């Protein structure tokens, strides 16, 4: 041992080097803590400011047009007539369609990735592919939708319309740009979100729950459908709601594919319009009055997404804390 060798060691020195923190240390500490506190407040104020600023700009239009604007379908700039019902309809309809498709694929993939269907390496490859789907910018999806997806859909859609034209979903002829193409691309875009959060939910199912099901003689799919999915249902519904939130706010793919015509129709092949694409297309050349109306539309969109997202977060938070206690 070193100290026994009689070498220079701290043990042979009685003096202490410990010094109280210098004034510089103290001032730095104070400033640094204050700074973090200030930016925490700034985060809150930023959100408040966003809502306040957009709300403030929308207020004159809200006063002038009232809630009637939400349910009117007239949009006539020259006569100052505005209504955003078709856009609200288009937003909700396209998002729900995308949710059905993206939800089905997303949850299926989440099951595929979590329930030991694949060797671990393949699992990672597929997981990365799905995550990369989310990385592609929406404007690129829009471009792809116009030049790849629409030509691809054309023959099938035409056939569906000519054979099943009586059915409301196929009641108009397919013009390419419209609800169907938009919702399809939208579903690809929300699939990764749903798949990722559902995977977390499925992984959180305790192993012993699964083992209990197998122990009672359930087949793999019986265990998945009757035990694992119900146990993870909270997290999965949260995933769906958050996916819906993403779909509601998505702009570019829709602006490029939905056709931007203020139509309210159940038909998948009809062109439509959404709140976000309305904003994207009209903001650049809006006059003051129109800007107010657009801010009103932005407020509506903001409100819808805020409610949906809060709901999703709430569902995930409540179900995951319960899961932790199990």
């Amino acid at each position: 041992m070193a100290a026994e060798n009689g070498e220079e060691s701290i043990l042979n020195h009685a003096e202490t080097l410990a010094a109280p923190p210098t004034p510089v240390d103290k001032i730095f500490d104070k400033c640094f803590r204050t700074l973090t506190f200030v930016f925490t407040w700034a985060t809150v104020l930023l959100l408040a400011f966003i809502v306040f600023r957009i709300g403030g700009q929308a207020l004159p239009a809200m006063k002038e047009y009232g809630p009637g604007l939400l349910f009117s379908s007239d949009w006539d700039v020259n006569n100052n007539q505005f209504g955003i019902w078709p856009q609200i309809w288009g937003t909700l309809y396209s998002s729900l369609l995308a949710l059905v498709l993206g939800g089905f694929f997303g949850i299926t993939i989440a099951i595929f990735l979590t329930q030991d269907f694949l060797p671990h390496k393949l699992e990672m490859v597929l997981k990365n592919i799905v995550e990369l789907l989310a990385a592609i910018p929406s404007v690129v999806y829009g471009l792809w939708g116009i030049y790849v997806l629409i030509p691809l859909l054309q023959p099938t859609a035409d056939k569906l319309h000519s054979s099943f034209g009586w059915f409301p979903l196929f009641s108009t002829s397919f013009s390419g740009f419209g609800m169907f193409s938009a919702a399809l691309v939208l579903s690809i875009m929300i699939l990764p979100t749903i798949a990722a959060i559902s995977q977390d939910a499925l992984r959180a199912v305790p192993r012993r729950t699964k083992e209990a099901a197998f122990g009672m003689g359930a087949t793999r799919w019986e265990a998945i459908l009757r035990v694992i999915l119900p146990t993870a249902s909270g997290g999965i519904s949260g995933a769906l709601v958050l996916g819906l939130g993403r779909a509601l706010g998505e702009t570019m793919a829709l602006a490029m594919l939905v056709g931007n015509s203020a139509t309210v129709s159940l038909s998948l092949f009809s062109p439509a319009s959404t709140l976000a694409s309305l904003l994207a297309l009209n903001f650049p050349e809006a006059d003051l009055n129109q800007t107010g109306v657009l801010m009103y539309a932005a407020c509506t969109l903001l409100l819808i997404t805020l409610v949906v997202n809060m709901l999703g977060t709430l569902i995930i938070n409540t179900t995951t804390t319960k899961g932790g206690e199990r």
Partner: protein
Amino acid sequence: MNETKNNLLQLPNLERHPFEPRALKSILLSTITVICAILACVPLFSVLVMLIYRGGSRINLELFTALPPTAFQFDGGGISNAIIGTLFMVGIAALITIPFGVLAAIYLAEFGPYSKIATIARFSAKTMSGLPSIIAGVFAYAIMVITMGSYSAWAGGVALAVLMLPTILLTAEETIKMVPKRMKEAAFGMGCTPSQSMTKVVLPMALPGIITGVVLAVARAAGETAPLLFTAIFSEYALEPNDPTASLAVLIYNYSNSTSENQLELAWAASLVLVVLVFILNMVSRWIGSRTRK
């Protein structure tokens, strides 16, 4: 009664029955799952193949150095101003959000994690992360474009910053929280002030995670179009921060339905450049993330 009793006494049947309804159902469901998984991969490959097929031919020096062509210019031209514009605006956004997000995250994770303001700030950040990207554009329009009186790269940067902030803040908070408690204790035990413990011990350990969050946020912002549409809009000229500014994303959007074949090709080439950029950023963040987990 008797029958069940007899059955119980019989040897149970343990043989496989591949055509029993239960087994068939399992096979069917597994098949559907596999098909779904394959179908989900198709868009990614389709997009990548199309980008290379339609945009690959334009990948040359001119693409990165020349300005965009007019609609009547049948060949040539590049996207240099859009590349520079994207980098410039993402850079502004990063300069705003990195200090903003990391400092707020430090408070949320360490200095006042249970305080009321921290709870509200965390909630605000989560809410903002779900904000439609176009709303960020509307906001930047309201505070920058209306006050400054013109579209500008600055406004575009602010719009992107609103989108990047929650990602950076929330990932930084997570990683700072993940620094083992014993490291913080060691620092305090040595007589560090809370700020010294944070800057000398905790932040260096959390740095890789924070960088991962920043890179992901940058990757996302680089591909955003909606917030730039009416803040930076577009320009065919070289970068001039106080004037309308081009970006890759808006260039793709503007040229996507151009009647000029030349511009359309450029849209595909720009998409390829953008996707490659975004993928590289994603890989970098994964690489940093996986390195630190070891």
